[in-house]
C-alpha cells in the first residue's frame, strides 16, 4: 500500500436545512492515499468536532458498495468518475497531489437537500410501494422448484435486480429521470414467470407514481448507465417503455 500523504483542497457543500441557502466551504487536508473519500470526511468531521464546530452531515452505512446509502457528487460525477463503484469505494489514491475536489449532494428536484450532503430520496420508495412487488402473502406458495426458470432468464432478472437504489441515475440525468431505477425493477419482474400476472398493472402504477414524485423523463443521453455503480443497462428503460405501451392494449388502465 502506498504511503505518501496527499495534500488536497476540498470544497464541500454546506447547507443548514432544506430551506436555507447553501455554499461551498473550503478545507485543506492531508490524507493517506489508502483512505476512502468517506474516511477523509470522517477525519474532517473529527477535526471539526475537536474544535467544537459542526461536522459535515453525510450519509453512509455498509461502506462496501451494496446498501446504496452513500451518494455524493464528486467533481461533477455521482459517486466520482471511476466507473461502477459507489462513493464509499472511491479511494484517495485516485486523486493527484494538490488537486481540488468538489463534493456536493445529489441534485434533483425530487431529492430535496435535508442538510449539507444528505438528500431526501423517499420518492424512490414511494414508487416501489405503488407496485414494485409480486403480490404473494407469506405461506401458501408452491415448492420453489415447481417454477422452472431458465438460467439465462434468471441471470437477466438478476442483472436488473442488482440495482442498489442509490439514486445516482437521477442525479446524473439532466432531466432528473428515475427511469433506470424504475426500469430495472419493472424488468426484474417482467423477466420472471412469477411477475407475469401483474406485469401490465405494475408498470402503469409505478410510472404514474414516478411522474407524481417529480422525476423527469428519459431523453436517451445514457448518463444514468454511465454513472450507475452497478452498471444497470439502459435496455431496462426500453423494456419498461415496451411494457408500458403494451399495457395500454393488454391491461385495464390503472388509476394512480
Amino acid at each position: 500500500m502506498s504511503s505518501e500523504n496527499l495534500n488536497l483542497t476540498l470544497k464541500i457543500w454546506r447547507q443548514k436545512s432544506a430551506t436555507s441557502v447553501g455554499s461551498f466551504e473550503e478545507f485543506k487536508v492531508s490524507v493517506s492515499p489508502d483512505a476512502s473519500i468517506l474516511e477523509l470526511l470522517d477525519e474532517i468531521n473529527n477535526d471539526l468536532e475537536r474544535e467544537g464546530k459542526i461536522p459535515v452531515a453525510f450519509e453512509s452505512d455498509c461502506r462496501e458498495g451494496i446498501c446504496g446509502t452513500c451518494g455524493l457528487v464528486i467533481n461533477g460525477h455521482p459517486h466520482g468518475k471511476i466507473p461502477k463503484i459507489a462513493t464509499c469505494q472511491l479511494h484517495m489514491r485516485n486523486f493527484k497531489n494538490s488537486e481540488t475536489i468538489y463534493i456536493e449532494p445529489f441534485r434533483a428536484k425530487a431529492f430535496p437537500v435535508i442538510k449539507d450532503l444528505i438528500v431526501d430520496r423517499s420518492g424512490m420508495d414511494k414508487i416501489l410501494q405503488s407496485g414494485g412487488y409480486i403480490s404473494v402473502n407469506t405461506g401458501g406458495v408452491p415448492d420453489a422448484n415447481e417454477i422452472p426458470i431458465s438460467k439465462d432468464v434468471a441471470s437477466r432478472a438478476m442483472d436488473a435486480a442488482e440495482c442498489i437504489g442509490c439514486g445516482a441515475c437521477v442525479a446524473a440525468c439532466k432531466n432528473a429521470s428515475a427511469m433506470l431505477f424504475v426500469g430495472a425493477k419493472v424488468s426484474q419482474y417482467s423477466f420472471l414467470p412469477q411477475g407475469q400476472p401483474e406485469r401490465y398493472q405494475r408498470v402503469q402504477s409505478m410510472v404514474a407514481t414516478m411522474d407524481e414524485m417529480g422525476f423527469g423523463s428519459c431523453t436517451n443521453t445514457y448518463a444514468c448507465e454511465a454513472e450507475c455503480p452497478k452498471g444497470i443497462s439502459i435496455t431496462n428503460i426500453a423494456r419498461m417503455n415496451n411494457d408500458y405501451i403494451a399495457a395500454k392494449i393488454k391491461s385495464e388502465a390503472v388509476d394512480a
Partner: protein
Amino acid sequence: MIKLDSKVPEGNIAEKWTNHKFNMKLVNPANKRKFDIIVVGTGLAGASAAASLGELGYNVQAFTYHDSGRRAHSIAAQGGINAAKNYQNDGDSVFRLFYDTVKGGDFRSREANVYRLAEVSNNIIDQCVAQGVPFAREYGGLLDNRSFGGAQVSRTFYARGQTGQQLLLGAVSALNRQIGKGKVTLHTRREMLELVVIDGHARGIICRNLVTGEIEKYSAQAVVLATGGYSNVFFLSTNAMNSNATAAWRAHKKGAAFANPCYTQIHPTCLPLHGENQSKLPLMSESLRNDGRIWVPKKKGETRKANDIPEDERDYYLERKYPSFGNLSPRDISSRSAKEVCDEGRGIGGGEAVYLDFAEAIGRLGKNIIEERYGNLFDMYSTITGENPYQVPMKIYPAPHYTMGGLWVDYNLQSSIPGLFVLGEANFSDHGANRLGASALMQGLADGYFVAPYTVGNYLASEKPSRVDTDHVEFGNAVKEVDDKVKKLLSIHGKHTVDEIHKKLGRIMWNKVGMARNEKGLNEAINEIKELREDFWKNVNVVGQDKDLNQTLERAGRVADYLELGELMAVDALNRNESCGGHFREEYQTAEGEALRNDDDYAYVAAWEFQEVGKWQLHKENLEFENVKLATRSYK
C-alpha cells in the same frame, strides 16, 4: 426478578412446532385490526415480520433509522442461505441441518429452536422464489445449490455474491406492498431510544426523529425488536457504520435479560487495518480459502516484500498445525492462529496482517480459472487496496463479524418482558456459541416470516392487551429519560470526540475480549471499560443541537451504550470458565491448543439481568441435549 422459562413444548422434537402451532390461540380475523404492533428494524427479520403481520391484518408501525427499509445491513450478506430441501439428493434432511447447526454451535444452543429453524428453512426458499428473488439456477431451470462453510451437503441457495441483497429486497418488497395498502406505516429516520413498559408488559417505544430531533411516543400492544447485532462494540468490524446495540440495550435496561453476550464471531478473511482513519474492515468471501494459502514470514520483523521472501522462509501455519483441514480450518481456529503469529511479531511488516497467496493456485490451475472463480473478489480487493492479487499475495486479518449473543428469548421468541419479542441477530437463540455460514439469513427470515406471526398472535389472543394512550405516565417517564440523556450528552463539552472514545473502547475489546481471552485480561478490561465510561461522561464533546439532524449525538448515544455492553461482554466471558465456539479462554484448551468445553458446569445459557450500570445478576437456563449427542469438535 426474572424467572427464565424456555416454554419449549412437550413431545418429540419433530412434532413440537406443529403441535405448538395447533395449541396456540388465534386472533379472529375481524379482531386483528384492533391490535397495533411495533416492529423496530427493517432487515431480513424486521421486514419479513412487519410484512407478514400486516398481511394477517394487524396494524403495524415499522421503524428504521435509515431513509429506506432496503438499507439494513442484511443487504451486505454475500454467501447464501441454507435450507434442507435436499434438491441435490445428497442426503440432506431437516434433521441433518438441525444436527449440523447444533454441533456447529458447539452445543450451546437450544435444541427445540434449532429444529424449528431447520424445519421452516424450506418454506423460506419457497417464499423467496414466489416473491421473485432471482436465485442462481441450473441449465434445466431448477435451483442451484453449493456447499458452504465446510458442510458435507450442498444446501446453500445463492444469488451471485449478493444473496443478502436479493433476500432483503424480496422482504422489503413484501413490506412495501403492505405500506402501499396502508396496513404497515413505515417511520424512516427514527431511532428507538427507549422501551415503554407498563404493568410489566412492553407497550410502546420512544424514538428520536433523526431529521428534526423531536422525541416521539408510539404505543402498541406488542413490540418486536429486529435490530441486529453488536459487533460495532469493537469499533472496527464488518458491520455497517450505523449498526448498533442501542434498541436492544435500552430494552435490556428495562428488564429484558441479555444472553451469552461473550459469543462473538471473528471472521478470518477480512481486509487488514491500513491506518488510524479506517472506518471498517470489509469482508472478503471465505471461499478464497479454497485456493489461497495463508502464510507469514518465519522471521520476526521481516522487512522484505512478499515475493522476495523465499519459500523456505515462509510459515504456512495453518497447513503446519492442522494438516488435514489446513487453510480450510474453521473460522474460529483460523482467526485465532492469525492472531497468534502476529502477536509473535511475525505479521506482515510486524503488524496485524497475514498473507493469502494465490501464486501456487495460479501456477497449478492457470490465471483464467482463478479469475473465473474469484474475479469479482480480486477486483474488489484491488479497488480497495490498489494492489493486484494476481501478482502479489492478498493481505488479510480477522475482524468481528457477527454476534451470537443477544436478548434472551423463549421458544416463542418472547423476551423476559412479556409483549417484547426479539428476532434475528438481536436475539441469542439459534446459533449457540458459533454460527455456521449461510445460517444468519435463514434465521432472520425464519423468525420474521414463520415464527413471530404465530407467536405474537398467540400473545395478543391470550393476554388481550388493550390500547394504551401515549399520555400514560410511563410514556412521560420514558420521554424524560431520553430527554435527560440527550441534554446531558450535549452539556459535557469535553475534550474527546465520540469516535476517539469509541476507538479506545474498540482496542480494549479487541485486545482483551476478542479472539482469545484470559482471566487477567478480562479483569483488566472490566476496569479499563469502567474508567473509559467515566471519562466519556466527563470529557466527551458532543457538538450541535438536539432539535436538528445531529449525527454526532446519534453516535454518542450508541457509544454510551457500548461502554456498558462491552463490560457485560467481559463479565460474561470471565464467568464462562471454558472455551466453546467463538469464546476461547486461554486457560481452557487441550494440549494441542484446541477449545476445551466444560459440559458439566457450563452447558447453560447465561442470561444477565440488569440491576444498575456495571452490575448484573446471572440467571441460568440449562441446556439439554436429547437428540444430538454431546461431542467434541476436532479439526486435526
